[in-house]
């Protein structure tokens, strides 16, 4: 793969923005000012960044309960994501949705989701629409290892394969669904191998290696755009924190395991790799870190200042017509 400075820095920037966003969201949540529940993506940033770097604005993404990273990478402004987490009017859904219900048609973002499986068939449906309308768009569905033992995964992958839909199924296998280890939920712990059941290409990739993800996704997107059908991509990764804020995430995972995965930090890894390979300079990264810090600080200020929606609007827009 030909690695340009521009590519490296844009992937870095995407990951750094997610990392900074999540840490800020955590801080606000812990201060008691954020309603609801949030599921943080720290440790898994390479997947959102690497996959979405291969997409156009018009392409579609569906996401899971752990979806801030996907929303940011696809282009919803950090201000609007953070305000949405607050249930505030400045949020991308006016505060109606919160963390697990982020939507933005302007960037093809078909929603984070409070339910585990639905994003998978919804992405396949968006791909079907693209195919019927002959727009060349592709759809990507992000979901966890917990989703792959669910019936919707099976039905959607089968239909996507037989109809050759332009969709990429990205499994973020972080080894646990809540506290259940993947190996307790299935006998076949290779998600990629399951693609064979649908006669679809299945790819396993290091989920903390943003360049590898970028490369593999690029190939899958090209196949999809050429009309050659779907791909299942398994990205092996790990969440640093608990399942949601409030879960320490330590009772079912050893300290060593967590530490080992922190050593594989995808953000630091790209930076070190880039410096070692001479793709970019230390100053490049420092500048981005600084930009991202102020972007997220601004997002937080915006979100905290954004008022709650007016109660009188609560019955608006239940229907279009």
């Amino acid at each position: 793969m030909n690695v340009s400075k521009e590519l490296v820095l844009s992937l870095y920037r995407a990951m750094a923005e997610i990392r900074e966003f999540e840490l800020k969201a955590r801080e606000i949540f812990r201060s008691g000012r954020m309603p609801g529940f949030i599921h943080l993506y720290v440790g898994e940033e390479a997947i959102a960044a690497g996959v979405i770097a291969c997409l156009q604005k018009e392409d579609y993404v569906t996401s899971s309960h752990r979806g801030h990273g996907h929303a940011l990478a696809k282009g919803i402004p950090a201000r609007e994501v953070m305000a949405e987490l607050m249930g505030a009017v400045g949020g991308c859904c006016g505060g109606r949705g919160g963390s697990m219900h982020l939507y933005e048609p302007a960037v093809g973002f078909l929603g984070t989701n409070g339910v585990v499986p639905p994003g998978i068939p919804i992405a396949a449906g968006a791909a079907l629409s693209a195919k019927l309308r002959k727009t060349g768009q592709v759809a990507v569905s992000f979901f966890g290892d917990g989703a792959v033992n669910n019936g919707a995964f099976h039905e959607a992958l089968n239909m996507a394969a037989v109809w050759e839909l332009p969709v990429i199924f990205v499994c973020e296998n972080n080894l646990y669904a809540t506290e259940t280890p993947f190996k307790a939920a299935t006998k076949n712990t290779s998600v990629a191998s399951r693609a064979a059941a649908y006669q679809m290409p299945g790819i396993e990739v290091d989920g903390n290696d943003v360049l590898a993800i970028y490369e593999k996704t690029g190939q899958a997107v090209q196949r999809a755009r050429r009309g050659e059908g779907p791909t299942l991509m398994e990205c092996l990764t790990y969440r640093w924190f608990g399942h949601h804020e409030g879960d320490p995430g330590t009772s079912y995972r050893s300290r060593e395991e967590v530490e080992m995965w922190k050593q594989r930090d995808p953000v630091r890894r790209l930076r070190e790799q880039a410096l070692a390979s001479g793709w970019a300079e230390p100053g490049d990264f420092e500048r981005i870190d600084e930009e991202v810090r102020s972007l997220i600080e601004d997002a937080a200020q915006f979100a905290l200042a954004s008022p709650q929606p007016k109660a009188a609007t609560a019955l608006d827009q239940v229907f279009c017509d």
Partner: protein
Amino acid sequence: MAKTQSSVRQGLDETSSERVGTYVEAGIEAIRDEMRRDPDIFYMGQGIGPRGGNFAQTRGLWNEFGDERLRDTPIAELAQVGLGIGAALAGSRPIVDIVFFDFILEASALLIQQASTIHYISNGKFRVPLVIRAAMGGVRNTGPHHSHTFYSFFMHIPGLRVAVPATPHDVKGLLKTALRSDDPALFIEHKALYNAKGPLPAQEYTVPFGQAAIRRPGKDVTLIAVSLMVSKALEAAEILEREGISVEVIDPRTVAPLDKETILQSVSKTGRLAILDEAYAACGFSAEVAALVSEEALDELDAPIRRICALPAPHAFSPSLNDYLIPSVDRVVREVRSTLRG
């Protein structure tokens, strides 16, 4: 939805049109017209392509629109509805045919959690112009897994439209409205009605949602019914007429939205209310109508409300049991008559 017109007086076979057609033809006609008009509409379901549908409900459409727009699916209701939602979000206008209404349960999670909420939760940014088509009710002893009529589930959920047509005229007109609406809608036909004949205007028309039809005017008692039960209501009214009891038969045509005004006006005239439903009574459509009137027109009632419904047992296969459980014209006559003794 703002009501655009007041209720209409319309018997099962009175309209201005001379043209007659069947209930199943009416649906095909609506879909054909709309698919010709709007290239974004496509149709998916089991056996709806070359076969033309289990109930012949898509006959001829595949010949005209081909494999791309008439898509046979595997037995995967969950994915059918899920793909339908995704396609609707992306700008298509899918019709997902579930064939037997019973099997919508396999995908109820997607309708209730996703389709009904996305417009609202996205603050109006997304629309879900999805039509679910299915055929409910019993016919020729379809038994416990193929006879359900639990359309009340979808009345309970804000954000969904539910149409339950009784006539060819309304099938065509309501299906067109559903296909032009940007809201998710369930279009629920009745298996036993597919061969029913009635006026079917060839010219362009729609039937708005939320507008009841007064199938038979009357003054002594109001009888509410939808879908197949409308004809039983009319038969019963006929019999009661001979006894000097004048029954007003109202068919709401859509149960969400529900035309409350027409119901309340009728009750304020007759002072008596019975609801006839093929579904169970508990938390059903009949409960909702009774509750509505007990909230908004209690003072108008001269007698207790009656619900004439399927008796609370699974849909037994045996004809003798099934006939006992499902409301018969006899039972309707008896129950309606009893409201006048109250």
